[in-house]
């Protein structure tokens, strides 16, 4: 098992000649012999190799170059021999030594060895921290290698130069995975170098022609073609969305060349071109259930139409051999990105059977048992790619979701969800959660296929991955939360989580043994583990979001498993995507008539956390938190009172006031040109408000909180009118460009000026749907409310209403209403008429000509919309409407 001679003393010999011979012998004895490798590594050969590699430049003799080459090769052979041994290598010292060898002046053989070793190591353990911080020379070195060897390729040694560039690109591909949270791991400078390289390659005379189908292969050398495809692939990963958009719009010739590559003879080049074009026309895929990515970039449909046939051919070709087992996972990942855009592109993919094709491929690699060990790296990538593809499609249309179910994809999802948790299956689990999330958008599926699937256990288990952690964390958070103003998500959670993650990782790695622990327990690893585990939880949370809706049959089973504390824990997470999804899930839980659950949730969340979330640095979290309040106080005067009591009327209105004036709040935000955020434009006599989209969402959420308060008791309504600053803003926003904002403001006005004349019976015969669950109008909630009747006498009551109307008029509501009479949206015009009628009748300005407005007003009131928020992910899915609590309803209730 061990070679006859221990070569280590010789490797350490001061005589360079001996050292070199020993290294060569070492190389021959370890290559292909795992035991030998372990034996030498355990005896510290790594240090010797690193010492040779990092030898001072000064000591240049006849041996130094060869010694470095041999050391590099030996190190490489260690790296290739599987996770156990490469884990023994992994460490900042190894990496930084290797990074330092990446100089254009290094011997090419050494460069190749170093690049391969780094690629292998970073493939096994992707870097999570910023590489430019950890290894500042890496990006410049790689850029230097690219330019140096591209220019030298033209002169002599073409083949080796191409190979080196190919290796550099391969490394870049690994370092900048498209779904990485850190696109910034490498510098922009590198992306520019790479872009430059690809540009030079593509514009080389005859390059495109020589790659075409009809050309005789060999016109362009194999090495050069490999280089081209790897460079394009790397670029597709490396490019930031901004750079991509810039390139796509500024270099049409470049796009033309890329499009031509879609018909190249070689599949790898076609795939690379697909990947790059996809990057150029979409925003990057978040493979982690990360719902933070913004709205899709303006898509170039024409480009996508060229893309789909090329991708489909790659998929079909893969399917024609061995039923797609050999499919490149990147094909599916690229499809996922393309399909995520939805629209006609997704339609075209679906109509030619992409769903069935993808399911056919991933059915082979899906785990058949509970054990995770059988899933290899490639299978895992293929499976996650396929699942991402399905989830991307499921986001869009009910018919896609139905097709996904019909293709029997749920079996695979369930199999994945029920596989034991292990690092190897993390990505698959995330992908499976995404599919669930997509499918749960269908209320129909939520009530049928998903119920029967038996996924609850799997999802909860994923969230409960940190159940032990959660207990202590929740306690500490509650404690922290009670002290106002303290940081709610503290360090303790991540510390505990780290420990658990580390244990899990070690048990998974298993064979690494005690000695290896020192290497593995580096900071990086913890970070990476933490990140991955968080991603899984985030994805699971996204899947939970819709499952906990009131009308979901899965709500009870899930709640019964004690998921609520897990969700609240998520809402405290420092990891923004998880926090966002968690708040989203909470928002869904307080939606509906189930006051008991509302109470439980509020108790678990607590007002301090809620207020914290309302001021979250992340806009989307704020929006969800405001929506949570909106749902919480909908049709419940009790909860309005609770809100007032716990937050304080002053603080609450200060909050709402701030939200309605996003410009001033964000003016210190240096990232954008703030003057654009909240603009009053004079447009043909009309003053139009525009705000940035994410501010607008917050304004809408805030406005509906006010709508609900205005539908509350008389004293609730009075509270609003007493905050003139808020009312002024509401009136100003009646000129907002988005009709949702205008409508919400109108509702506030309507509710504030509504006078209940003859007390009437229970309201709620009608309800108005503003939105539906895609095509499915399921789950509309019924109306009905409770509360107490106004205590004031009718006359007094009307007088108060009149005063409120007077305030509104004083603050300029009439001018705005006059403007809205000509609104392009019918609904807005109708509501405006009603509002004008109500105000006029209260302020005595009522004149003939309104005709039956009074009656209409009543009718309108009956279907007035409270509009609580139930949205999934980025895409508004359901906006349930029901009778808000108006005086009509109040009167019908037995007074207490």
């Amino acid at each position, binding site marked *: 098992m061990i070679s006859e001679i221990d070569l280590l003393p010789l490797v350490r010999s001061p005589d360079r000649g001996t050292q070199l011979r020993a290294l060569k012998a070492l190389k021959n004895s370890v290559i292909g012999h795992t035991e030998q490798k372990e034996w030498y590594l355990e005896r510290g050969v790594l240090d010797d190799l690193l010492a040779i590699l990092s030898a001072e430049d000064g000591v240049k003799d006849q041996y130094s170059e060869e010694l470095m080459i041999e050391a590099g090769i030996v190190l490489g052979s260690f790296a290739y021999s599987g996770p156990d041994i490469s884990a023994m290598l992994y460490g900042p010292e190894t990496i930084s030594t290797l990074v330092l060898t990446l100089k254009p002046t290094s011997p090419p053989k050494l460069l190749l060895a170093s690049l391969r070793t780094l690629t292998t190591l970073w493939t096994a353990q992707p870097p999570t921290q910023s590489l430019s911080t950890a290894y500042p020379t890496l990006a410049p070195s790689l850029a230097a290698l690219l330019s140096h060897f591209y220019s030298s390729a033209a002169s002599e040694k073409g083949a080796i130069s191409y190979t080196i560039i190919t290796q550099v690109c391969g490394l870049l591909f690994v370092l900048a995975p498209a779904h990485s949270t850190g696109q910034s791991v490498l510098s922009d400078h590198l992306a520019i170098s790479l872009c430059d390289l690809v540009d030079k390659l593509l514009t080389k005379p005859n390059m495109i022609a020589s790659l075409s189908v009809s050309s005789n292969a060999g016109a362009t050398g194999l090495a050069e073609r490999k280089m081209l495809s790897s460079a394009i692939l790397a670029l597709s990963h490396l490019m930031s969305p901004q750079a991509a958009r810039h390139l796509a719009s500024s270099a049409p010739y470049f796009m033309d060349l890329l499009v031509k590559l879609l018909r190249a*003879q070689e599949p790898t080049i076609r795939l690379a071109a697909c990947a790059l074009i996809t990057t150029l026309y979409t925003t990057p895929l978040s493979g982690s259930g990360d719902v933070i990515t913004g709205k899709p970039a303006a898509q170039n449909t024409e480009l996508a139409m060229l893309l*789909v046939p090329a991708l489909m051919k790659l998929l079909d070709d893969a399917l024609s051999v061995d039923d797609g087992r050999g499919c490149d996972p990147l094909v599916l990942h690229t499809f996922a990105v393309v399909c995520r855009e939805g629209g006609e592109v997704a339609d075209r993919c679906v109509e*030619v059977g992409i769903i069935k094709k993808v399911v056919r491929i991933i059915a082979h690699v899906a785990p058949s048992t509970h054990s995770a060990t059988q899933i290899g790296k490639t299978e895992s990538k293929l499976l996650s790619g396929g699942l991402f593809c399905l989830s991307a499609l499921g986001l869009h249309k009910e018919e896609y979701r139905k097709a996904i179910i019909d293709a029997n994809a749920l079996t695979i999802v369930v199999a994945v969800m029920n596989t034991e948790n292990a690092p190897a299956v993390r990505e698959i689990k995330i992908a499976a959660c995404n599919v669930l999330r997509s499918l749960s958008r269908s209320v129909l599926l939520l009530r049928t296929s998903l119920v029967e699937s038996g996924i609850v256990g799997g999802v909860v288990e994923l969230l409960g991955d940190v159940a032990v952690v959660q207990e202590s964390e929740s306690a500490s958070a509650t404690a922290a939360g009670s002290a106002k103003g303290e940081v709610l998500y503290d360090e303790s959670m991540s510390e505990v989580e780290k420990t658990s993650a580390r244990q899990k990782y070690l048990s998974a790695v298993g064979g690494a043994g005690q000695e290896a622990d020192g290497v593995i327990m580096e900071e990086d690893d913890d970070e990476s583990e933490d990140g991955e585990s968080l991603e899984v939880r985030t994805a699971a949370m996204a899947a939970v979001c819709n499952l906990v809706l009131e009308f979901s049959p899965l709500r009870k089973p899930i709640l019964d498993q004690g998921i609520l504390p897990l969700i609240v824990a998520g809402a405290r997470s420092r990891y923004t995507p998880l926090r966002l999804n968690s708040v989203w899930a909470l928002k869904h839980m307080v939606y509906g008539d189930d006051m008991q659950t509302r109470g439980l949730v509020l108790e678990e969340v607590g007002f301090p956390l809620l207020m914290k979330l309302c001021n979250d640095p992340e806009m989307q979290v704020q929006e969800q938190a405001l929506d949570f309040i909106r749902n919480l106080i909908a049709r419940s005067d009790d909860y309005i009172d609770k809100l007032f009591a716990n937050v304080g009327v002053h603080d609450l209105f200060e909050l709402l006031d701030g939200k309605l004036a996003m410009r001033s709040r964000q003016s210190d935000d240096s990232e954008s040109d703030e003057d654009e955020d909240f603009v009053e434009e004079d447009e043909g006599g009309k003053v139009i408000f525009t705000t940035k989209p994410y501010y607008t969402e917050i304004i809408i959420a805030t406005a509906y909180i006010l709508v609900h308060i205005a539908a509350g008791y008389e004293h609730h309504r009075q509270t609003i009118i007493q905050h003139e600053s808020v009312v002024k803003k509401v009136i100003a926003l009646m000129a907002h460009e988005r009709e949702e904002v205008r409508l919400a403001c109108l509702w506030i006005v309507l509710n504030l000026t509504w006078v209940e004349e003859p007390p009437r019976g229970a309201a709620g015969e009608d309800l108005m749907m503003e939105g539906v669950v895609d095509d499915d109008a399921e789950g509309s909630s019924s109306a009905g409310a409770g509360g107490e009747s106004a205590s004031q006498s009718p006359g007094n009551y009307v007088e108060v209403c009149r005063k409120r109307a007077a305030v509104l008029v004083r603050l300029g509501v009439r001018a705005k209403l006059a403007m809205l009479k000509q609104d392009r949206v019918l609904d807005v015009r109708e509501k405006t008429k009603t509002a004008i009628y109500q105000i006029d009748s209260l302020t005595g300005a009522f004149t003939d000509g309104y005709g039956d407005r009074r009656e209409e007003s009543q009718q309108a009131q009956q279907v007035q919309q409270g509009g609580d928020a139930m949205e999934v992910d980025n895409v508004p899915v359901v906006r349930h409407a029901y009778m808000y609590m108006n005086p009509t309803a109040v009167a019908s209730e037995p007074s207490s």
Partner: protein
Amino acid sequence: MASFAAKAGKKPAVPAAPLSDGRFTKLPSYLEGTAYAEILENALASAPDPSTQQQQQLQQQQQSPSDSSFSSFKRDSISQFKQPGYVIQDPLDSTSFIVPSVGSVDVPAETAASVSLHRRFGDADVDRSSSFSARLLESPAPPPLPSCWSPEGSPSSLELSNDKLEIIYKSESSKPTDKDAASMRANHPIPPQCGLYYFEVEIVCGKEGSIGIGFCGPKMPLAKMPGLVQDSWGYHGVDGNTFACQANGMPSYPYGPEFTTNDVIGCAINFRNGSVFYTKNGISLGIAFNDIKESRLYPAVGMRSHGEHIRVNFGQQPFVFDIDAYMIEEKAKTYKQISSYPLPAELVSNATTAASSSSAGGSGASDAALSRLIHKLIASYLGYNGYVESARAFADDVKSESSAFSTALYGRSATAGGAADFQILEDVETVNRQQIRTAVLEGNIDRALKLAEHFFPKVFKEDPKILFQLRCRKFVELMRACALAREKEKEGGVFDEQAAAQSEDQEMADFTTIDSEKSPSSTTAVKNADELLSEALKYGQKLREDYKGVTFPAKSTAAPAPVLSTSSASSSSLSPASSSSTPSPQHPSSTTSSPPVSSVLDAQKALTDIFSLMAYPDPLQSPVAHLLSEHGRAAVAEDLNAAILVSEGKSSVAPLEKLIKHTTVLIHELAEHGGQASFVNIRRDFLSS
């Protein structure tokens, strides 16, 4: 409908003028490089646009067939080739100034002066005894591709527009029923020889979606949708179903997605296995029909509702679907099948017994037999063509390789049995032929004549035509020298013929082994351009005198002596193609009606051609400059070599060439009704580098 053509302002269709209606400026990309395409291109190049033909006739009428007017006619004929349309190559690139025969099938002129294969393998002239070649000569023009819709037989509700590429359905009926269905087919059936046929239909306006796309036979009643009636097949947009020769009410087959406005639907018929697939917007939808066996199929489209509007692309535009890649794949499949086919048993056994005593059986023996066969073919080819050094090097190579091989396999006892065969042609005769070839390639015609006379005294007696060819070339060489000298003089200074001659001598000395005597031309003293010109003129006059009224019959067993032409005037009825000295044949179809004329080398015409050089003060810049090209020497050298071989009682071509020719003909035959052979193109796939 009959009035339609007039209404659309179209010229009446010209029958039997494949593709020459100008609809294709370029063949559909996926057919590029197929044997079918090459034949079609040739046919096209040799059968010019009828309008141009008329123009030429006019010119011929206006101009007397005198020498001086001839050159201007030639200019016209050249410019005719430059017209846009189906011009495959520029005749100015033509390399041989004399075509030894006309009527060959494989025609595009050799543009590359490749040393290895000057001869066109398909050239029927090369071996006249071959019955295959005879068949080739007689093969009719290949059927044309569909190029537009044909209103013939279609209901009047279909209207054509945009050069007969678009169809619009017009009808009063507001609620379309099956009775309103109307189909139209293309102007030509799909030629099965092309192996794979593909066209795309863009739905400009889909309306009710009741459009059917497919193909049909000649018997399909056109008042029905494709697929819903006998002899037709279709894919329907309204439901995405396919129909095959069904009557209404028959069950349909769910196939693909529905299609409507703005979709592009493609239809591909693969004659390799009779399968059909459709594409939608560039994506293959998979096999729709199998086992289509009919050989006369037309692209067809059917519609039913008012306002429906389609536009077809028969390959005039790039396709949305990447059919080129599909074609390459099909081709690869064919070649894979061929290479997996076992070697014939007799070949294996022959080779095995003929070779060493080794008795290795199975594929090893088969491989060995095959490689021996290939080695022999190569060696004989090199020998035949006089590449002595190469042949020698090759033999050495094979010898050492095979001895190493057999040593490794069978031990030292085995000898390289096959290697001995390579020596066959490496003899004095081969060396002599090589010398002669070298002389011709050097432009030293006198020396070549002398050597040939010396070593192969029979050759000029048996083949006076080759002597004529050489003499013509000699004249051209003189004109060339004169032109070069004039150019030199113009640049200043006297043309240093001495220096030129010396360098020529030097070159010659490098390879002259037998005859060290200096050739006359190289011994002449310094000459200026005028002297050279007068020498050329003198030589030309002599040439004309010697061959006055002479014509050469087709090479046969007939009398070797020149035959006096009975009507030398008739020789002026030249086809434009041959007058431009493009090595183009007459239209193959015409060969059947006009007997051996095709293979007659018309001496008068050839003389007229070369004498046109004198009409220009600076022939190098003239339209006939190509005649002076050095490439012309290669053709003469080839022909001389072949003539010598024949005179020595050998086949004029190497077995390798013969093999290739035979295979080409066989494949041509096989491909006529479709099938895999269509995907094989010997010339392009194996002989072009």
